[in-house]
């Protein structure tokens, strides 16, 4: 304690080109107020026999997870830890819609089974035959931060050597309509989007994109962004660091990835790629700051 932790790989399916980092140099300009993700060709990754009964979010989660694991050179991770603010909404809405419109008889269980939040983590475990630690966090925009913190804690306690950590949320048409009604999405702001992000954490630095120096999730909103930033660097042992530091915030990243409860996961993914590509030495992510809690993550070059 404390063991050093590295991010070996990270990938995304979003409104940007899927499973690629083209957004760094030539991001797709977002327009309108609602954008679905650019999905890869799922049959390149999942045999149609297997994907037939998976909803869209499950397919995205499986693909980003398996690509991240392959890039990290890991077949079966020690732990699978997932964040999802709302789970598989497509299935939830189908099951709920049937109950509300047709009553409580003649319901089929498939949509119900896929609507529990932990269906993502467990499906990945079933596919990988992963019997290790498995957990799911559903806590708004800090779902990902909670999952990342858990992975870091498991590693620091020496319980695991590596972990698949992901965050997945979809915005169906119905979800978009309802969350617009609730005021979460609004015109003139970044468009409503969807995100699926997976990354592999490991105590092994070999081939890693960057080092995870610190992660915290906090409820307090009383402190200024400047205080949060300074404290995060101090906590990461970088108080006196005078090199190239980039601050990644919701304001900076919603023009690229849109508005979504999984946005902090995209910010950590982006920070890992930018440090990994030598775009900066240190990245400080202050995510979810417009919500009720913020996720603060510090990444640095491996040294």
């Amino acid at each position, binding site marked *: 304690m404390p063991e050093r932790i590295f991010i070996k790989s990270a990938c995304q399916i979003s409104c940007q080109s899927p499973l690629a980092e083209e957004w760094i140099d030539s991001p797709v300009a977002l327009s309108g107020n609602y954008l679905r993700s650019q999905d890869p060709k799922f049959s390149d990754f999942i045999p149609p026999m297997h994907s037939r009964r998976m909803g869209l979010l499950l397919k995205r989660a499986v693909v980003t997870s398996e690509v991240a694991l392959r890039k990290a050179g890991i077949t079966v991770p020690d732990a*699978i830890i997932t964040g999802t603010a*709302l*789970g598989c909404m497509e299935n939830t809405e189908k*099951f*709920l*819609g049937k*109950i*509300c*419109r047709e*009553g*409580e*008889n003649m*319901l*089929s*269980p498939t949509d*119900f*089974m896929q*609507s*529990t*939040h*932990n*269906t993502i*983590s*467990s*499906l990945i*475990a*079933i596919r*990988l*035959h*992963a*019997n*290790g*630690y*498995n*957990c*799911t*966090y*559903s*806590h*708004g925009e*800090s779902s990902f931060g*909670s999952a990342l913190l*858990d992975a870091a*804690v*498991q590693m*620091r*306690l020496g*319980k695991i050597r590596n972990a698949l950590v992901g965050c997945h949320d979809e915005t169906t048409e*119905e979800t978009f309509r*309802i*969350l617009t*009604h*609730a005021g*979460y999405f609004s015109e003139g702001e970044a468009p409503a989007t969807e995100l699926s992000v997976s990354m592999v954490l490991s105590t092994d630095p070999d081939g890693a994109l960057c080092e995870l120096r610190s992660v915290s*999730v*906090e*409820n*307090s909103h009383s402190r200024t962004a400047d205080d949060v930033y300074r404290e995060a660097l101090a906590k990461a042992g970088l108080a006196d660091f005078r090199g190239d530091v980039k601050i990644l915030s919701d304001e900076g990243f919603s023009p690229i990835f849109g508005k979504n409860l999984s946005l902090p996961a995209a910010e950590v993914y982006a920070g890992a790629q930018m440090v990994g590509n030598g775009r900066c030495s240190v990245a400080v992510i202050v995510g979810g700051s417009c919500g*009720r*809690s913020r996720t603060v993550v510090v990444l640095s070059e491996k040294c």
Partner: protein
Amino acid sequence: MPLGIPIVGAGVISAIGNGMHRTLESLLEKRSGIGPVRYLTTEHGDLPCGEVPLSNAELKELAGIPQDRIVPRTALLGIQALHEALGTAGLSREDISKAAFISGTTVGGIDITEDRFLDYLSGKGDPSLILLHDCRGTTDATSAPFGDFAFSTTISTACSSAANAIIYGADLIRAGLFDIVVAGGAESLSRYHLNGFNSLMILDREKCRPFDETRNGLNLGEGAGYVVLESPSHAEKRGAKPLAFLSGYGNACDAFHQTASSPEGDGAFLAMKEALQTAGLTPSDIDYVNAHGTSTPNNDASESAALRRIFGDNMPPVSSTKGYTGHTTSASGSIEAVFCILAMREGFLPVNIGWKTPFEGGIVPVHEDSRGVRIGHVLCNAFGFGGNDSSLLLSSVNTMK
């Protein structure tokens, strides 16, 4: 830091009582809380459930919440258990502001949404209520009356959510991130998951009979349970008296099927094995197992197989308390952890009500009254859909002296 984390506070509400005192009476008197639903609106009124015998209006009155405010029932139940847990631990607002709150739920505020879903879709209804739908909305509504925790999160691993919340809480303490963590879970009945379980054809139309040859499914229940975990040094400094200790735990994945358990109970076996290992104990140290024991043919067979793999021919007393409360799903892990604390402190083994005849390969659960029993270490199992299997190892205060 070795395990042995003091549990300095606890609170519980279920169909058999609001608070530890009433709960203990019901357990000792073998009083089941399962029966017809009174408050849940459903076409399946013939399905027995373990409903908490308090209306939302009564729960609001108990909590001092204005009647016109809409609060998910999950949070209303959570508030009762959290109030008792914080009270028994003697936590001040100042303590709470430095503590973490980890709550498990899956249903969240869907009881609010299922009454208004079609309205929401057509842009009608109070839009602010939508924000109560997700799991976080419920967790925040549960803790709101008690002040601001430094960190809150929600674990959603179906029926092992509360057990995993306790595990995460313990790890946060062991990693030195917090001195006090309040952890557990809450879940109310909803049309949504009553119908979900019904569509899976795992609900019994009679009262459930865990581990019995004729068992034919579960009865859903509801409730909440929270425990207050505190680092040993902080507890000592504060003069907090432990009710029991959390001395081990395991989280494993069955990785077999989305809604069924493997025949040999791989996930359950691994979770119990890890709990014993982390506690530095052997199977012969275990004096009681509170089984997950849902009363579905699949769970009870799979869990029996896992128990045999751990204990062989030296099976300790085992019982399921689902016959009292029904299956309280996401909250079951913490509700039953509180039952275990009560059993250790009062020296009794909860009788597995509903059981008559063993099935081939099944364990024979506790079926006779026993008082004055010395219970040092217990395992408390909670397994969820997707194979999210967890086991807590709780120890009495006497074992730590």
